[in-house]
């Protein structure tokens, strides 16, 4: 990021949130500076507040119905476009991951795995209901079938490690089945989250379907648990105390809370990460009866 001339100042930025299809600053005015391994200032990131979260949930709720009503084919196409747009910005993302502490090789691997993950779930969009849904042969003259429907508005809490792949691993399955998402990215390395908001902006993602926050996990987890218009929460690799906070959300309004645990190397294992079983906690099963008769 050195300038071509010695006295040229670079344009420092504060990365903003991605919320409701736009890029607002946090309403709290707070930022968090992030430094690289050599202690150079990378940039300022928004420290999202409870009100930002509230606004994000509002945006997600507004968007979710129409997102779920789109054909599966179209949702798949949008996920595929996200993969294409991410792939197109490979260099930028690799650089961001290196700044966050990866080696160049690790960054490349993480970027490629993230693109492939989006492609894999783009492919699931118009297939998972053929695996997770079914006709039920009830013992009475009724046509009975079970269909998977999205949970609704979901919160995703991404792990600190794998700042890009961790986020994508939660977003892809959530979006694939028709949920709208409010995601909190890695706290230690938020740059990938901020950049991913830009990818969403050019991928035909309808406003409000994806909302990305950067901020303090400890501050925000209780808010996630307490908000009654959130239908489900998906997390990965949280500590027990953190999981407990979120689980209390179930106790409050029956939020579906699911904690994934990705062991060493698991995040790169596609046989684990791309399985349709990962979609089960993110859907509701609706069973429909209709009489059969002249």
């Amino acid at each position, binding site marked *: 990021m050195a300038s071509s001339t010695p006295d040229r100042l670079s344009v420092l930025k504060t990365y903003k949130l991605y919320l409701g299809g736009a890029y607002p600053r946090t309403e709290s005015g707070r930022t968090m500076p992030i430094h690289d391994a050599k202690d150079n200032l990378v940039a300022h990131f928004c420290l999202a507040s409870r009100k930002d979260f509230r606004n994000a949930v509002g945006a997600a709720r507004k968007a979710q119905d129409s997102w779920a009503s789109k054909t*599966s*084919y179209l949702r*798949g*196409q949008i996920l*595929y476009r996200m993969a294409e747009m991410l792939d197109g910005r490979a260099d930028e993302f690799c650089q961001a991951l290196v700044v966050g502490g990866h080696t160049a090789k690790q960054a490349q691997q993480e970027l490629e795995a993230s693109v*492939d993950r989006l*492609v*894999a779930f*783009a*492919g*699931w*969009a*118009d*297939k998972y209901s*053929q*695996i997770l849904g079914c006709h039920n042969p009830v013992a009475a003259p009724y*046509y009975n079938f079970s269909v998977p429907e999205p949970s609704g508005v979901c919160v995703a809490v991404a792990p600190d490690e794998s700042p890009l792949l961790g986020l994508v691993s939660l977003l892809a399955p959530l979006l694939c089945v028709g949920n709208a998402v409010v995601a909190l990215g890695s706290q230690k390395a938020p740059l990938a989250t901020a950049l991913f908001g830009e990818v969403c902006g050019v991928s035909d993602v309808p406003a409000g379907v994806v909302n990305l926050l950067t901020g303090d996990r400890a501050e925000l987890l209780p808010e996630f648990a307490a908000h009654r218009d959130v239908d489900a929460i998906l997390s990965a690799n949280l500590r027990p105390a953190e999981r407990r906070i979120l689980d209390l959300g179930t106790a409050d309004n029956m939020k579906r809370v699911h904690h994934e645990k990705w062991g060493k190397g698991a995040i790169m294992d*596609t046989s684990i990460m*791309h*399985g*349709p079983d990962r979609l089960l906690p993110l859907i509701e099963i609706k069973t429909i009866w*209709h*009489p*059969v*008769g*002249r």
Partner: protein
Amino acid sequence: MTSKTLNIEAPALDFGEHWEYAPAPEGTKVEIAARYGAFINGEFVKGHGRKRLATVNPATEETLSEVLIANPKDIDDAVAAARAALPKWKRLKPQERAKYLFRIARRIQERARELAVLETLDNGKPIKESRDVDIPEAAKHFFYHAGWADKLDYVFPGRKARPVGVCAQIIPWNFPFLMAAWKIAPAIACGNTVVLKPAETTPLTALRLAEIFQEVGLPPGVVNIVPGDGTTGAALAAHPGCQKLAFTGSTAVGKELARINAGNSKRLTLELGGKSPHIIFNDASLDAAVEGVVQGIFFNQGHVCCAGSRLFVQEDVLPEVQQLLRARLHNLRVGDPLDKNTDLGAINSASQLATIQHYLKQGVAEGASLQQIKTKLPKKGYWCAPTWFEGVQPAHVIAREEIFGPVLSVMSFRTPEEALTRANNTPYGLAAGIWSDKGARIFDIAAKLKAGVVWCNTYNRFDATSPFGGYKQSGFGREGGRHGLLPYLELS
């Protein structure tokens, strides 16, 4: 004909010449080479066959190109190429294999206009259809199957999925590009390699698809295209180097292919002819039903295996249905397939036109009443105005044999049981349409119809996710959806 619901003194609606639509020709020009050979092992080759066939634009009768009639040596080369490409292709990481299919889908979308025009020139179908249906559906087919490549172990619980091997595929002339997509996409997504023979009268878009394979860097030999005639098809179907044969075409040829392969272990799927019925109940939305019937038999000039060629109308609504049918057909425009306002294009070949005309004569001879809207048909080319027969009896030849043209047989029924019996009374069983506002009845009749696809309050809807195929002599095996993968997989 008297009716309780109609006052026959109300004058008919006037759909004559007023505010005529000016010609709206599709402007895109398409390059067509004077000669084409085959596409084998990733290259366009001249081929060993000495003979060529002229592929003709059925709307103008002009020759578009001279195309190779591949001979047995060409087939040997193609099968050998597919066999050689198989180990690497099936061992490729599934996610990487998927990417080829994604690229093919994208490329089809990018070249969509050119492909649509070429399809219309070679086949005779209206540009509106090739542009809005054939080409986009083909792209979607590749997108859908791209997504399965890395998910095959989930197709059948508890079983690992492996490719079958080299697949011989023979496709018909009615949806040349789309049928190529329907065959190739699932086969290669599952790790198989392919030798495909396009129809004699419509080889051009399959050869253009081969260009796309080259553009996306599909490894040589994964898909091979060998054009030709019946002799080519016979040689391919019998070739012992193939582990699978997939055929879409007439029931007569399908039976012959089954005979040729009796006793060997080749996997076989056949998608054959049909004489699919519509049943319109008196509680149906009649405007929707008539539109569905019209789409069902006149779409693609009736050259559709699942065409709804028999219409059963509940007797008390028959006069109204006939009146709406007549009104609708007044607005069906027959003519230059490259005109964007044409609804019905040319019949694909002189021989198919002769077959249709034979059945029209047959119908009249049997005592059915031939109905056609007066239309001015072009002087050159092969044309048939949309036709329906009234007063058809189930025993009539026109009610039993597949005509494969824009000809509808209209019959009536009194009770659901009668409709069901008549609808099922056929050696075919590809598709059926039910028109009723009552859900319970729809599910009941759908359960009892012997047809592989039942459309309820709609017709001729296709989707890559939806399995398609027939009962009885309409063939066996399914294409599309999860079930459509099974013919291309060994489960163990």
